[in-house]
């Protein structure tokens, strides 16, 4: 009886858990199953396989927490100098490293490819008096404390977007009453029930609630208006020249062998042009945001500097 139960347990763990033992590439997904990074990693490798670019085994590890810094630290420990070791990460990791004083330095890793982006939108309740970003910024300027704004975790891209908007509007970032919410869904409920004056989240999370008529979208952080949200002006159109994306990408292990690293950059470059990947972007509603190799490295360095400055202005890091 018990033996059979234990066997079931083992079989379940084997079947549900790790996947093939003969895996050729190890991929660190520094988030819980079901989240954005998990989806990015799994979908990208599925598309690599469907497009016939990389068809060998893949061994995924999910280690979530702290904006990906826990997973990346583990990756650093187990994979430094190894070929065929990759990790998924994104814009949120950049801020999280500085906030948690994490020992990780993104510059140590080898940048493979930036894959996707999701733009952010600012929303207010449907019955709110604000109809433009300028209306909102004017009231924020008059009394920042009385107008709480919500979004993702402190120091995350949502927070950065609000901080940049405040800076453009001449409001001291440290005066903002930014309240982190645990999910986009909670941000929406808090906007609707009046706890928050405004909220920030990814377009995919807010679009449907705007369609339901519960919230109004005042602005999007993309360079051009979104095709699915033709009536929402960009921040730049509204007079605040800000462009910000919640991007996701792939890193190789620090000290990965040059030929192996070049091979992965090449594979992801092929992926970005494949129909399989375009189909994934289409169904998931992700934007193509491809950038490979050292260019991506330069982009990471630039993001680290921008976000670091905003976090300092917000009084979140010293």
């Amino acid at each position: 009886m018990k033996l059979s139960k234990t066997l079931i347990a083992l079989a379940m763990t084997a079947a549900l858990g790790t996947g093939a033992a003969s895996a050729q590439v190890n991929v660190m997904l520094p988030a819980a199953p079901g989240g954005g990074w998990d989806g990015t990693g799994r979908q990208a490798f599925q598309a690599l396989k469907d497009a016939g670019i990389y068809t060998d085994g893949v061994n995924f590890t999910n280690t979530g927490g702290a904006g990906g810094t826990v997973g990346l630290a583990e990756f650093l420990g187990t994979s430094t100098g190894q070929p065929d070791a990759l990790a998924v990460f994104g814009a949120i990791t950049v801020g999280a490293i500085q906030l948690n004083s994490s020992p990780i330095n993104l510059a140590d890793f080898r940048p493979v490819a930036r894959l996707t982006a999701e733009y952010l939108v600012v929303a207010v309740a449907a019955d709110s008096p604000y109809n433009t970003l300028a209306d909102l910024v004017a009231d924020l300027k008059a009394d920042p404390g009385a107008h709480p704004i919500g979004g993702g975790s402190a120091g995350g891209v949502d927070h950065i977007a609000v901080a940049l908007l405040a800076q453009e509007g001449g409001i001291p970032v440290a005066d903002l009453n930014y309240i982190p919410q645990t999910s986009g869904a909670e941000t929406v409920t808090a906007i609707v029930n009046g706890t928050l004056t405004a909220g920030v989240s990814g377009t995919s999370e807010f679009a449907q609630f705007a369609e339901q008529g519960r919230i109004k979208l005042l602005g999007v952080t993309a360079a051009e208006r979104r095709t699915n949200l033709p009536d929402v002006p960009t921040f730049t159109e509204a007079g605040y020249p800000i462009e910000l994306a919640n991007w996701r990408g792939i890193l190789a292990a620090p000290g990965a062998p040059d030929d192996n690293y070049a091979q992965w950059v090449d594979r992801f470059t092929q992926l970005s042009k494949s129909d399989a990947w375009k189909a994934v972007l289409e169904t998931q509603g992700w934007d193509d945001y491809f950038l490979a190799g050292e260019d991506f490295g330069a982009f990471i360095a630039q993001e680290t500097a921008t976000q670091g400055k905003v976090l300092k202005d917000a009084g979140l890091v010293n």
Partner: protein
Amino acid sequence: MQTFGLLLDGFAVAVQPVNLMWALVGSLLGTIIGILPGIGPALTIALLLPITTTLEPTSAFIMFAGILYGAMYGGSTTSILLNTPGEAGSMMTALEGNKMARAGRGAAALTTAALGSFVAGTIATLALTFAAPAIAELAFYFKPADYFALTTLAFCSVAVVMGNSRTRGFISLFIGIAIGVIGIDSMSGQPRLTFGVMQLLRGVELTVVLVSLFAVGEMLYVASRFRSAPAAMASVKGQAWFTREDFARSWKPWLRGTLIGFPMGALPGGGSEIPTMLSYTLERKLSRHKDEFGHGAIEGVAGPEAANNAAAAGILVPLLTLGLPTSATAAVLLAAFQNYGLQPGPFLFTSNPALIWGLIASLYIGNVMLLVLNLPLVGIWVQLLRIPRPQLYAGILVFAMIGVWGLAGSWTDLAIMLVIGLMGYVMRVYDFPIAPVLIGLILGPMAETQLRTALAAGQGNPIVLVSTPLSGTLMVIALLFLAVPPLLRRLRANA
């Protein structure tokens, strides 16, 4: 009666042989993962997400629904028989259920759990069918102050009701809150109580604590008392099955559990833990057999088991009607919808009625399937208790370690398991109740976030905490919980 017609169409979809098969697969899988500690419905569905590329959406969601309901059925089995909750939603079941099993009434406990799950599942599915849009609106009325008052009430009632002394109850509660604080503070992004250990940044997983306190602590306790304990567990032969009296004592808790579980499941953060706990507290207050609580009261199994199944249906309400995920499982289900390029919400009811109503109809079918699966199994499960204790507990330990390892494959988790297991043993020896630790761990972070959100939004004015009618009322009840018993005692002493 348009709903009724749509539901009938849904049944036409759900009884197609291929969909019936997926419902069965889901129910079986759900029951198994419910029994296994560590693997919950959220993780299982997440790991099954890749199959959505090959499976038709209706079939996939019918299977996922089976997993969701099945986990609630299965979780009760190990709680009752082995005092090791397989699921967070079934931890309250362990309190009374395991005592019943030791008193030779395991079969009755399992039966009331299975029947209660069935009754609650069916009523909640009916409510989901006919009242979903109205209930979904609740989510938009609850403010941070209301949530904070709700958690405060839960803290006070649990610390006072559980165990023999309120001092011990509160100490247990605060231990739980302290464990809940470990990790990154979600409001400021700063690490707390991590002592420089990287792995602690992501916090302590509830399942690890659950398994350690119940399984490891219990095992150490039994091992330490083994010489002086009677050699065999309570015999299971000739056990009384479900008697008329059991039924008479169970049906009201089933209904009350459903009433608590369904709307709570629909609220963000409600999940299945809070309703089971509130149901337990309520049954303990209302029971005419108060003296049996803590020694195996059937009401204490019937209520929470009904509540957790009703909550499982409850989480589908805001998910399907608003596209609002209120728990981890719901968030994974949302990801599954998005994999198909579907966005749950009011539009899905009109754009894809076959999927939605097929899913709802399959919930009815899955419920019947689970009852048919689980009732005959009761006889087999209770045989577990005939295994000699050294082997049984060794088995549980192996089982628990596989579960914890399976969570993240992390050595840190195993180390935490050892430390908390030892703590569980000490608590057991000195008669500290375990449930408040778990309540503190689950609700502590939620209470903190809501408190800070409420205060930040109110610019630091504490009045906002009682500014809504609901928060005011709940706070008063919480105060009464604390103040009334000692007052009564003093009055009685003076009289």
